[in-house]
């Protein structure tokens, strides 16, 4: 069910400001691809353009092609709502719905779309998703309690459970661990390892060890200076990026001699 993503000559704008320029790469199915690079280089922007979340920002637009499963994502015939159903997303800050319980949060994807579910089916989805997100054992006795009552790391895993409950083809993660402690981070990294057998995962991270630990391929982005667009500098298997990168800029960034 997982799909690969082909990006070619992608330019991303906020109004007149060119944020990301000329990105071409291809994300493999059933693998983890990491985006690394300094702040402001357009990693998150590129990630958000992969499920058309980018255009939620007023004035934002995209030039170029993103092809998933043979379909051009920015074709006028494509329904962005349908795209987002297939390509899930986990955000930097955990954002469970404050009006819903843990149970309802996991089912939010179905419930908000008014999909009719039998009680047994719903229970099934909740248990499966929470188990997948390594959260089941911690919350199984208080599923009716508000999702906001969980700790930050649990909330983030709840958000992951919510994202995988709708069984998307691709899972985009925008710095999912940046607000978490090392234990929760490690739980989520384990989760990413398990998920990649079923999902295509793209993860943005500022933590290079994390990129090295979880990803098969790594894309390094950089920008020439403030106000200049971000560019893809190097896209290679993670092993190669971290041991023997093609570009000197990549090596400088990874070894901490950036700028």
């Amino acid at each position, binding site marked *: 069910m997982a799909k690969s993503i082909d990006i070619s000559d992608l330019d991303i704008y906020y109004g007149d400001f060119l944020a990301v320029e000329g990105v071409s790469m291809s994300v493999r199915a059933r693998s983890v691809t990491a985006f690394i690079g300094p702040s402001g280089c357009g990693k998150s922007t590129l990630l958000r353009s992969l499920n058309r979340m980018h255009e939620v920002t007023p004035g934002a637009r995209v030039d170029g092609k993103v092809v998933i499963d043979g379909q051009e994502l920015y074709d006028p015939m494509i329904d962005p709502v349908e795209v987002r159903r297939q390509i899930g997303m986990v955000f930097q800050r955990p954002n469970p719905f404050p009006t819903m319980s843990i149970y309802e949060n996991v089912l939010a994807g179905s419930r*908000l779309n008014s999909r009719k579910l039998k009680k047994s089916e719903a229970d099934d989805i909740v248990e499966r998703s929470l188990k997948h997100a390594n959260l089941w054992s911690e919350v199984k006795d208080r599923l009716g309690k508000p999702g906001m009552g969980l700790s930050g790391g649990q909330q983030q895993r709840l958000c992951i459970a919510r994202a995988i409950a709708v069984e998307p083809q691709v899972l985009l993660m925008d710095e999912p661990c940046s607000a978490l402690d090392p234990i929760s981070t490690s739980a989520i990294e384990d989760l990413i390892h398990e998920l990649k057998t079923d999902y295509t995962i793209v993860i943005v991270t500022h933590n290079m060890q994390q990129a090295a630990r979880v990803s098969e391929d790594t894309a390094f982005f950089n920008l020439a200076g403030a106000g200049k667009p971000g560019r893809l500098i190097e896209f290679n298997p993670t092993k190669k990026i971290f041991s023997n990168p093609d570009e000197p800029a990549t090596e400088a960034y990874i070894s901490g001699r950036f700028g």
Partner: protein
Amino acid sequence: MATITPTPPTPTRSSMHLKTPSLPRWAPLLVIAIAVAASAMLGLLLGWGPVGIAVVAVVLYLVGVPLWSRLVEDGRRAKDRMMTGLVWTAFVLALIPLVTLIWKVVAEGLPQINAEFLTYSMRNVIGDQQGGIYHAIMGTLLVTAWAAIISIPVGIFCGIYLVEYGKTSRLARWITFLVDVMTGIPSIVAGLFAYALFVLFFGEGVRMGFGGSVALSLLMIPIVVRSTEEMLKLVPDELREASYALGVPKWRTVSKVVLPTAMSGIITGVTLAVARIIGETAPLLIIAGKTDGLNMNMFSEPVTTLPVFIYFSYTQPGLPPEAGQARAWGAALVLIVIVMALNLGARAIGKFFAPKKGR
């Protein structure tokens, strides 16, 4: 690389003064007692009256406490005590009108309240016979309910448009501007407008409760729009994005994520708007008119509301005037109780809908 040797503590900075002398906890109370006693003695000797005594006592306190604090403590805490005293003075000053108002209304109104007063109208009541305000209570509730029925959907949908759909478009900016202008419309103008509007359909001299509701809704809509707008703006964008990322269309995101999250604030805003219009008199004098009997039909014949009843009972009390004026106080008390009940109800509902926290 030079090795770092630990520097010995410098003798000049050997001691830290974290303890400073301070006034005892009961110091302000003592000063209050002394100030009141001194001011009362002076006042009784010189014949100032209670207001003069209170003012002098406050001044004595505001001078005495900082002075004592300056002598024992330091300048910062003297200022702190001075400002604390000023804040308390302002707080008490602000409370005086509220407390005296409620005291007066309860004292004058409570003796009037009985079962007959609340369940009979003023039809065929002459002089100091026991009359009732049932017609005015029902009139107030019905006129206000119709105003709310008109204003709440219009106001909430307008607020949703402004925050969720209009954003920074020119139309939304114009609506925001016009809503601001509407907030400032004098209520009598709203009444004249409603009258002029209904004259177009029903001819000269029209009086009906629904006309009053239209006038009141002109006053209520801008308040509902503004409060809805503010509450929706407080909903973090992360929640909207979380919903979009699950493949939820925008209208469902608005109706099932954004609105429930903001619901408690919106309900509070709506109730405050109702409380604001329920006491309106001027527009209803023009369009809703006045009657002594009960009229539950909002679409024909005049309807009396509590504020209008109060106005007429007090200005045209009949003979003897005491009976009519007493009824006005009774009606005023009932009106205040209704408004308070609305506010308490709004708090309860708001709490019920508020996003739940805790485990």
